């Protein structure tokens, strides 16, 4: 069995075994074992990738290609480059952390873990696909379990949020479908056969008229998942209602599908369309960056704060991707990874705080640093990483983004960059505001004095996420080299 297909097969097997388990204890053990195997595989993949890269000059390595629907030239084609390898690692870490954080799911535990793993199967499959059809299939598989996850195990207006999220994301995928078909039917522009294979389409000069038409569809189709303004509205509601692990997976992993898809499909296959439309989407993305930051400033619900912060941070990813240069793209991918770990950590901590105090309203909280010091300290660290303090992953990413963005000549790009940079300041304000109100000061409720600090499984989850954040901040070069190397073939398309 090839090394990549296992990324889909292992979760599927785990799901099948989960089907036979009874009760919470069995379910969580099985999911934990499955996720640990998955993590082991993705770490192994990193090493295998470096080894392979030395002897293999192709864009994608470990490629495998099986014909699926011959008539449409649909293949199950897989392969990875440095970008997907990094994202696979992110996914497996967040999933494992998510399993630990959900250690005490008592309502329908089996179904919970099954849905969680179906979601992760979709994400893994998406990152390894190099065939548009396969990719699209996995994209939808990743999205649909969210409905049940939020609907059954969520809180607050969960039915509303679940429906809104699912419809917006599936609506986006519907738009994407038109884009995919458009690309497919133009993939014979150079006289070859129609194909869904990304690498083959990239060799074709798709006519400019078609690129102009299908770039916005493809871009929006993916970018909705990356919380592009004004299609971000599913995100705050969805996150607020979702159970902790789902928020983690969603913000940490699922939303990365958006940026990755924009990069891998929209930018790579339709470069002329990207150059034609970039001004328009830069305006939207920059608006998202600023709007998200100010949105977070006004909220008092912890999850809303983070959801808006995600809108802002992922807006930066799209913003950087649209800048169409190497440094910015590198920053965008770093930001994807960094935000993935960071937000997952944030949501995990919020879940812990909520589980203890039963409120997420920061005005009702206070002095938590005194009663649950470990969780609070980690919250501060995550906050600092989020506002881009040197030494953490966020700094490296944002530095790259803005340096890259500022390299673009022209008044328009410069102004957009300057406006977006200002969001960093606002980020600092809303992070420190939360830290100030919630963690410092007097304990507002006597009952909080009895609270217990993190348990062993929570600590494990936290550490899993914290290590990469610090790792990326302290030693970013190996990652950034790996990404830059993989960006090279993509950037050639737009130069």
């Amino acid at each position, binding site marked *: 069995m090839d090394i990549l297909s296992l990324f889909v097969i292992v979760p599927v097997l785990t799901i099948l075994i989960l089907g036979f388990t009874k009760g919470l204890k069995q379910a969580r053990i099985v999911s934990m074992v499955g996720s640990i195997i998955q993590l082991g595989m993705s770490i192994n993949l990193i090493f295998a990738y470096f080894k392979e890269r030395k002897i293999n000059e192709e864009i994608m390595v470990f490629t495998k290609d099986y014909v*699926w*629907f*011959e*008539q*449409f030239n*649909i293949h199950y084609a897989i392969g990875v480059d440095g970008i997907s390898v990094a994202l696979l690692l992110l996914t497996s870490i967040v999933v494992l952390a998510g399993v630990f954080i959900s250690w005490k799911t008592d309502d329908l535990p089996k179904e919970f873990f099954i849905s969680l793993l179906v979601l992760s199967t979709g994400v893994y499959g998406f990152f390894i696909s190099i065939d548009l*059809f396969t990719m*699209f*299939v*996995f994209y*939808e*598989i990743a999205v*649909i379990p969210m*409905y*049940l996850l939020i*609907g*059954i195990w969520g809180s607050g207006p*969960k*039915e509303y949020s*679940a*429906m809104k999220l*699912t*419809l917006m994301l*599936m*609506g986006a995928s*519907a*738009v994407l*479908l*038109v884009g995919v*078909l*458009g690309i*497919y*039917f133009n993939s014979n522009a150079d006289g070859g056969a129609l194909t869904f294979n990304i690498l083959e389409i990239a060799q074709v000069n798709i006519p400019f008229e078609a690129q102009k*038409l299908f770039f916005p569809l493809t871009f929006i189709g993916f970018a909705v998942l990356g919380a592009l303004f004004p299609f971000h509205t599913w995100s705050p509601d969805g996150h607020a209602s979702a159970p902790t692990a789902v928020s983690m997976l969603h913000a940490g992993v699922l939303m990365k599908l958006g940026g990755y898809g924009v990069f891998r499909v929209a930018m790579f296959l339709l470069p002329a369309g990207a150059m034609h439309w970039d001004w328009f989407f830069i305006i939207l993305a920059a608006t998202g960056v600023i709007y998200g930051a100010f949105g977070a400033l006004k909220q008092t619900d912890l999850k809303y704060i983070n959801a808006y912060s995600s809108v802002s941070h992922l807006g930066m990813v799209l913003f950087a991707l649209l800048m169409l240069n190497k440094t910015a793209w590198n920053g965008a991918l770093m930001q994807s990874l960094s935000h993935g770990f960071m937000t997952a950590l944030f949501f995990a901590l919020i879940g812990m705080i909520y589980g203890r105090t039963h409120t997420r309203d920061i005005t009702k909280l206070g002095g938590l640093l005194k009663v649950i010091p470990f969780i609070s300290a980690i919250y501060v660290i995550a906050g600092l990483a989020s506002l881009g303090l040197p030494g953490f992953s966020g700094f490296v990413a944002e530095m790259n983004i803005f340096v890259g963005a500022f390299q673009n000549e022209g008044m328009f790009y410069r102004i957009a960059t300057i406006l977006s940079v200002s969001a960093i300041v606002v980020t600092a304000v809303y992070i420190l505001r939360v830290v100030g109100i919630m963690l410092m000061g007097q304990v507002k409720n006597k009952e909080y004095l009895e609270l217990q600090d993190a348990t062993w499984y929570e600590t494990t989850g936290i550490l899993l996420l914290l290590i990469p954040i610090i790792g990326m901040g302290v030693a970013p070069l190996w990652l950034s080299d790996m990404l830059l190397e993989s960006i090279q073939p993509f950037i050639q398309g737009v130069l």
Partner: protein
Amino acid sequence: MNLDSFLIMRHEILLLTITLLLLVGEIFISKSKKSSLVHLAIFLFGIHTAVGFLAIDESSIFGGSFQTNNLIHFFKNVLNIGVFILLLQSADWIEEKIVGENRGTEFFILLFSSLLGMYFMISAGDFLMFYIGLELSTLPVAALAAYETTKRKSSEAGIKLILSAALASGVSLFGISLLYATSGSIFFNDIIEVITSTNLTILGFILFFAGLSFKISLVPFHFWTADVYEGAPISVASYLSVISKGAAVFILMILMFTVFKPLIHIWENMVYVVALATMFIGNLFALRQQNMKRFLAFSSIAQAGFILLGLITGTQLGTATIVYFVMIYIFSNLAAFGVVQAISLKTGKENMDDYNGLYRTNPNLSLIMMLALFSLAGIPPVAGFFGKFFLFTAAASKGYYMLVFLAVVNVTISLYYYLLVIRAMFIRRSETPIPFFKNKLYMRLGLFITVIGILVLGLYSPLYDYIYELSSVFN
């Protein structure tokens, strides 16, 4: 006329034999043993389904009135499987409710007669055979729709169905007569050669199309659908929505891709508009339905709209995707109707609210329903996704991107109401949920086959390639 030419009509003759056998059985078997006829009917039909898979040569008899080829043959098999599943799912209902009233055998006789009519309809080589088939397939269903004679709604459904069917067949017949007037023949092969886009021909075609649209329940000929589905017994509603609709779509496709192919520049615009109207109206009306049968009625109207996306192409790709989609649709819809049937039989409940909390008491039924609805909504990896995706591909291959875009908007709308059912089953709680119950063997088998179909038909790609190969006969 020799044995070989009889073998060409194997499906028809075998089914006719079974029907007659049942009729004889009905006369000679004593009243107390009537329920054994249910088993016999299902058993015989099972054999008939299996025998149908023997290969057949392309040929025609009765001077070209009756023709068959591999695609038609394949489609008859698909219909057979559909009816077989339907019988399995209805067996309990017939045994419990119908046999007692001493009307068990008639149910099968009527159902099989209708199916026989469909065989003739899709095998037709001229308009006469087509019309006979159409009538034979419709009239028994009207009787079936009114089968629960004690219920007013059932009688109402029967009357509504027979009146609209009569109108539709009259309109159709008028169209056919105009076509005959302009071309001088009722044979498809003759008409192909002389058909031109004169006004009279176009009028004939439109009337003919309208007549068949009733059967497929395309907008604006869909008004009977919801009322009839709601009133008729679930088995009959299920039959109308999958088998009857499937056969009508098939013959419409054949005729439009062969006889009326020269008029494609005229009917493609018409199909475009009808497709949009059918999708939007079906979906928008489905949003507010509470009764599961009405809900599935509007959902099946919307699904017919999607089928038109393949019809608009007029190519081999269109044929293949339509047949493939219809096949998947039969399995998905039968699964959904099967669950509704099972629940209605045990508890008499048919409303969406009654399904609240179903997953916690009857997890298996809820999961089957979820798979069926996902398949209807087109969510991977279940089969419905592949069916829809290929239909969209077919439409896009002719450059109808706008139509595909509006269709995917409709997919999103439809997802909303499919999720409503899932919400009721999985998310909502109920004070008085439907209690746990076990289905009988037939029902379980019937549901099991549909689930296998839903899971396998999409992922197993050689099937599609096979259909594509068969589809070459009409282009």
